[in-house]
């Protein structure tokens, strides 16, 4: 078998009509199989999913006081309101996709243990011995931590959580689209 193969490759003039037809047959079979494989992959790829749509409406801006953090757990979204305006965070850990949870204090245990915590690059906030408690998010899966504005500062998370698009709908409510990732400095002014 192996020597047949070798002879065939080395000198194609030794090919007989029968082996040529056999090869043509196998080639046809291979091509048909590859097409079937390709179609099978296409088959298991859903063309429509009936998942929760990425865009949804939240409450009117007046429902969110300045400085508040609101977790909408069903949508895995956080709405933060700062003096500068609104921004929304996609509450998906950038490490391996679990849902971080909001806590009033995510830093003081690290400060007490002597772990160095970097300053929040966006807000300039810093946890110190004098003022150790900063609010933020902790991921239950592998312990990543984020500041309130989604910047990561501890654990395996490689980058901040995504900020997603927020706009004001015609009826005056906040409209959030989780499929659109926006710049970190994006703010919706109301």
């Amino acid at each position: 078998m192996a020597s047949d193969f070798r002879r065939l490759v080395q000198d194609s003039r030794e090919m007989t009509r029968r082996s040529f037809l056999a090869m043509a047959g196998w080639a046809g079979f291979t091509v048909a199989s590859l097409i079937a494989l390709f179609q099978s992959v296409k088959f298991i790829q859903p063309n429509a999913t009936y998942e929760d749509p990425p865009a949804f409406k939240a409450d009117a801006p007046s429902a969110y006081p300045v400085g508040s953090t609101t977790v909408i757990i069903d949508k895995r979204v956080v709405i933060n309101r700062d003096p500068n305006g609104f921004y929304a965070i996609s509450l998906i850990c950038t490490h391996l996709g679990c849902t971080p949870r909001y806590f009033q204090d995510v830093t003081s245990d690290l400060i007490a243990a002597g772990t160095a915590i970097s300053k929040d690059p966006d807000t300039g906030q810093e946890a110190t011995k004098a003022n150790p408690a900063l609010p933020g998010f902790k991921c239950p899966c592998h312990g990543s931590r984020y500041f309130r504005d989604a910047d990561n500062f501890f654990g395996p998370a490689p980058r901040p959580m995504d900020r997603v698009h927020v706009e004001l709908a015609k009826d005056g409510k906040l409209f959030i689209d989780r499929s659109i990732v926006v710049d970190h400095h994006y703010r919706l002014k109301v």
Partner: protein
Amino acid sequence: MRVIRAAIDEAYSVMAQMVGSVFRHGLPLTDKIAARTALTNFVLHIHPVRVRRSWIRMSYTLCLGGLSFFLFIVLTVTGLYLMFYYVPSTQHAYQDMRDLQFVVTFGGFIRNMHRWAAHAMVITVWLHMARVFLTGAYKKPREFNWGIGTVLLLITLLLSFTGYLLPWDQLSIWAVTVGTNMAKYAPIAGPYTRYLMLGGRAVGDATLLRFYVMHVVGLPLIGFLLMVIHFWRVRKDGFSGGL
């Protein structure tokens, strides 16, 4: 030029060894080859021509492959029991699992048997592979069977992974979220692979059904077919030990 020719010759011999490991001989043109064909054919001659007592010494194989297969049978039977009560939908899965554990007569026993046998099978398959490796049993003429064995290991692990989602509790959902996100990190095909695995963008109804189908039909079927070839090869090649 000589270097290229040597490289081609090397490639031929590797390929010849691979092909020779799958197909043992060419067409049975002489009596000798015809006899060998019959003796190494599963249908014509199911038993090995000879088995030395030393080959099947317990202290050599530790019966790890046999234990793996025994656990596979335990898992098939207990899994069949579980299927009578389990519905793979996000509406029912968790409650059905709870019912199996606390309401169904001997349900907890069967479920725990399935769970512990699954853990044990992963362990015995790994140990079996380690034994085969350490005794050099993967060498000629058993390369192809080692190859089948590695696929069987992969199938064992995939069965474990797909089964992990089925209780549909927090641990399941986030473990599969994490696992499929790891798959997403693979270059180029990663995100698409994750989409196919989940049947969407997050772990949901489609994922549960997919994992269930693969867990109860797809993977066991592939595994069973490969096991048939695996065992047949073991019988035909004989055991590697005690020569």
